[in-house]
């Protein structure tokens, strides 16, 4: 290994370790790592500022920013609470029914919106519903994060790794619906039944006050019905365009940013308030990771990894793909799945350039990165959100509890996905 390769590897893995240790905010670590990579690259002449800018995938950032703006406009309207209260009333206070209905709402929202946003908004109102009925909110909060992680894999816009993979592999919105959605839906059904079984004891407890839930008025949760209606119309339009973006030769980021622009003009929100709700730190985290991985690529590290993997080409492609699902899932359970995805994209691209059939590998990466996050309390941001929220209540979710209830979900979804992946391998 050359000196640039060694230093680039140390910077990248050093940053990953710091992110994992949570000693420093992940975005601060990524900015520092990115800057260090460019400085070292300039000194040793393996990386330049221009190359660092080229390494940033603006399609991914644009798609994320556009969707974040739409959600940030929809959030204060109370629409999410409206859906949760509708579910609560429809459940008539029956825990199992409420569990399934809230799970379905979280699922549908997570397919089209960022998992973190979905959970941030649904979790507090879930706690409210559970408290007034008089049942434990823990099964509900955990399953919302777990189902949201699972179903996010189904669409191009459901989860950040998909945005990255779709952009790198050139997969369209419909490609995800054809190749990913069926496998994810079956995995989701498996996850739901498993959760119902794992939380059987908690869900069988009799609620103390069903009447209270029937007195919740969904209409009163909508603060701005007109704004909600307008943003939902724009969101529906954007989703329609996502279906045909490939045929129109339009990038998903243009669809998302145009939709955000239309909504901004139509709704004219308070921009200061709106921008406060955009997760800039996430966008900066992504951009910085792109810069770091660009450095790894320029230093020849990824080429060496591709070389090593090519030597393993005697492994049957199907085994290679299933193995990739589990390796990525295991990594995603302990480290953020975004850096893993960003680092593996050039590797898979390199394998493609050397003649390997890589389309199945892109899907394996998506399944592993998406499902792996459910494995541990820190595996996905949605998990961290519900755990942090539960820590502000009298019944915090512990790491031990997550290992008992979350890890089986990761293992089940990865197993179901692996079996279906193997059966459907020829279709990828």
């Amino acid at each position, binding site marked *: 290994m050359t000196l640039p390769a060694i230093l680039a590897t140390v910077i990248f893995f050093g940053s990953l370790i710091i992110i994992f240790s949570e000693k420093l905010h992940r975005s601060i670590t990524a900015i520092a790592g990115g800057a260090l990579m460019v400085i070292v690259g300039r000194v040793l002449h393996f990386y330049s500022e221009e190359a660092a800018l080229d390494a940033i995938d603006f399609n991914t950032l644009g798609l994320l920013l556009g969707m974040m703006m739409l959600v940030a406009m929809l959030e204060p309207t109370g629409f999410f609470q409206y859906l949760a209260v509708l579910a609560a009333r429809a459940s008539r206070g029956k825990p199992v029914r409420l569990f399934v209905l809230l799970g379905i709402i979280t699922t549908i929202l997570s397919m089209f919106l960022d998992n973190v946003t979905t959970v941030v908004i649904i979790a507090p109102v879930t*706690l409210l519903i559970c408290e*007034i009925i008089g049942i434990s909110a823990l099964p509900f909060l955990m399953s919302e994060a777990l189902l949201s992680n699972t179903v996010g894999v189904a669409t191009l816009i459901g989860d950040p790794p998909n945005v990255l993979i779709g952009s790198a592999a050139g997969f369209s919105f419909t490609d995800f619906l054809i190749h990913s959605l069926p496998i994810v839906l079956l995995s989701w059904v498996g996850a739901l039944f498993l959760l119902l079984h794992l939380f059987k004891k908690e869900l069988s407890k009799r609620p103390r006050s069903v009447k209270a839930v029937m007195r919740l008025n969904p209409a009163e949760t909508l603060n701005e019905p007109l704004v909600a209606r307008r943003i939902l119309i724009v969101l529906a339009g954007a989703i329609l365009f996502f279906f045909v973006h490939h045929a129109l030769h339009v990038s998903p980021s243009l669809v998302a940013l145009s939709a955000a622009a239309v909504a901004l003009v139509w709704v004219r929100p308070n921009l200061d308030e709106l921008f406060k709700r955009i997760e800039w730190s996430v966008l900066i985290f992504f951009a910085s990771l792109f810069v770091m991985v660009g450095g790894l690529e320029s230093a020849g590290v990824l080429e060496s990894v591709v070389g090593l993997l090519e030597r393993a080409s005697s492994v049957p492609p199907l085994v290679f793909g299933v193995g990739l699902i589990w390796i990525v899932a295991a990594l995603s359970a302990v480290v953020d799945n975004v850096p893993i995805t960003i680092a593996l994209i050039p590797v898979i691209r390199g394998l493609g350039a050397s003649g390997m059939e890589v389309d199945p590998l892109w899907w394996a990466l998506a399944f592993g990165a998406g499902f792996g996050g459910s494995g541990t309390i820190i595996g996905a941001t949605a998990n961290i959100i519900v755990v942090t929220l539960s820590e502000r209540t*009298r019944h915090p979710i512990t790491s031990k509890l997550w290992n008992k209830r979350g890890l089986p979900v990761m293992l089940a979804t990865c197993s179901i996905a692996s079996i279906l992946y193997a059966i459907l391998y020829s279709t990828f």
Partner: protein
Amino acid sequence: MTVSSCMKKHVVSIPVTATIRDAAAVIVNKHIGLLPVVEKNGKPVGVIGIRDLLTLELPDFVSLVADVDFVHDFGAVETTRPSARTLDKSVKSLMKPPIAVEEDCGLLRAYALMLQHNLHDMLVVSKDGKLIGVASRVDIGVAVLSSWEKT
């Protein structure tokens, strides 16, 4: 005018060895909103407010959901009580640091401190730090406003 001129001199307090259950009983019996926690030497080491005690019973969602207007019936929450284990904990686990002024403190300074710390009652201590009185917002406000009559 100083705060000692308007404070209540008969102060109800509890020792640091008391439990949360004891604190609640004193607040109920004396019908007061703030209970100073004092050491043997009479120096205040903390305060237990009626709000701190009610927080033990308030549902978790209240601090997490911005708007609760649409919840017309708190259902099971209304009949939830803190566990015996919680009530038997020491007042030290719930008390807040005492904010006090000395007896010669001016009325407006005392009032400004109450606003700043969002207090309804202010502890008044002697020069050697012993608790000698409690002045409420109303006590201080009435004392200030009464001087307007002479203007």
